[in-house]
């Protein structure tokens, strides 16, 4: 699975704020169903982005086989019509065109995921979202990263316990009830302990923010983002 990995690539060295701006701009450009020429440029750009994070394009495509499979399914469903001539090629092509752009956005965001540690994302959020909402969002994101593996283990334990007690004979609804009620109970117990620890550690509205530095390369990325946002107007 695609997650952050420490490395010294171009993408790793960029400021997370520039990377966030670029992704959003790229998404705006790619899902606006641009003409073939700009779409070609975007494709090359996406390829460049992957390489800048030292990601192998075939590997990423393989990792995204399910989302891409569903996109292909959409194209198929769009192409099929009820009644003759059964296949509406133009309709299918229109959806394929859109789906291609969506695929490119996924590739670009893969590079962000690979090249950006949580503390950078947290710093970016806190510098982009002002005041208390930014503070809660930043720490909240950090907490989600921290607790996903812990809670995933909890869920695994509950499933095992359920299976041990003839769990497979229960109905789907019953299993959902047991899994979610026990999962929620455990999560809230942990949350209450966490909230005590947060207070003991002086959880404050006005902390020292993690350091970020905006370099010349980041300026270029930002400039490129501005250009990308204008693609729908072309």
């Amino acid at each position, binding site marked *: 699975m695609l997650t952050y990995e420490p490395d010294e690539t171009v993408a790793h060295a960029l400021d997370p704020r520039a990377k966030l701006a670029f992704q959003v701009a790229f998404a705006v450009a790619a899902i606006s169903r641009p003409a073939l020429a700009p779409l070609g440029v975007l494709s090359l750009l996406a390829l460049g982005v992957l390489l800048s994070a030292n990601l192998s394009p075939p590997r990423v495509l393989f990792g995204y086989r399910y989302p891409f499979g569903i996109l292909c399914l959409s194209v198929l469903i769009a192409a099929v019509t009820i009644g003759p001539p059964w296949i509406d090629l133009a309709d299918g092509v229109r959806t394929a065109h859109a789906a291609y752009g*969506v695929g490119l956005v996924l590739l670009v965001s893969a590079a962000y995921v690979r090249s950006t540690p949580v503390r950078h994302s947290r710093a970016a959020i806190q510098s982009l979202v002002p005041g208390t909402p930014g503070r809660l969002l930043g720490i909240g994101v950090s907490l989600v990263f921290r607790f996903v593996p812990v809670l995933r283990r909890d869920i695994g334990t509950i499933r095992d316990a359920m299976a041990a007690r003839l769990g497979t004979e229960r109905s789907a609804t019953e299993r959902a009830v047991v899994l979610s009620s026990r999962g929620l109970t455990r999560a809230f117990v*942990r949350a209450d302990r966490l*909230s005590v620890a947060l207070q003991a550690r002086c959880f404050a509205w006005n902390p020292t923010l993690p350091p970020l530095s905006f370099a010349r390369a980041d300026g270029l990325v930002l400039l490129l983002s501005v250009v990308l946002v204008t693609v729908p107007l072309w």
Partner: protein
Amino acid sequence: MSTDHEYDSVALVPESIVRPFARAALLAALTGAVAFVSIPIPFSPAPLTLQVLFVFLAGLYLGPVWGSVSLLLYLTAGGAGAPIFAGGHAGIGHLFGKTGGFLWSYPIAAFVIGALVHGRTGFGFGSIDPTADETPSGGFFDSLEVRDPATVGLGRLVVALSVGTLIVYAIGAGYAMWLLSLSPVEAVAQFVAPFVIGEVLKMAATIALVRDGRYELS
């Protein structure tokens, strides 16, 4: 060693915010932790996934304000790279992708479910306890009250969950329709129809969980 008067500028986050905030963050993490769980349903083309069930629970147990904060945290953390979207995926691309509409609908649905179930008290107006002071002192977050969903009437629960589900599917399928140039029929065929059985079961599961009082809010 530290001496006093050093940290006069430190503005502590009050307990009335830290506690529900920690719960919101852990519910977000839990919603992500169940991204891998899928329970097969007989005669249904799609298995039962638990994400939307936790959207329900966020509105029910955290109320409209913290429930929607919880799912906003889920989206932000997933966008920032936590492997918590369906199938363990991550990244901003998924927020714009074909199922992006579903993701964006989560905080909205949690908010609406919370609002329908908890009413005015969920927004800090009035109090669950009729004998309590009508105007609680302190800030906005101090005045928020979330009643135990087990005490909520069945009709109200069914309405709230149905409206929440409609919001999820309207925004989810609507966005996919726009994004991929699909006709309404095509969008429903791919993004709604396969999940109908699962959604009904999820609502039943949520109501069973809530009414059962297996989970006690304290």
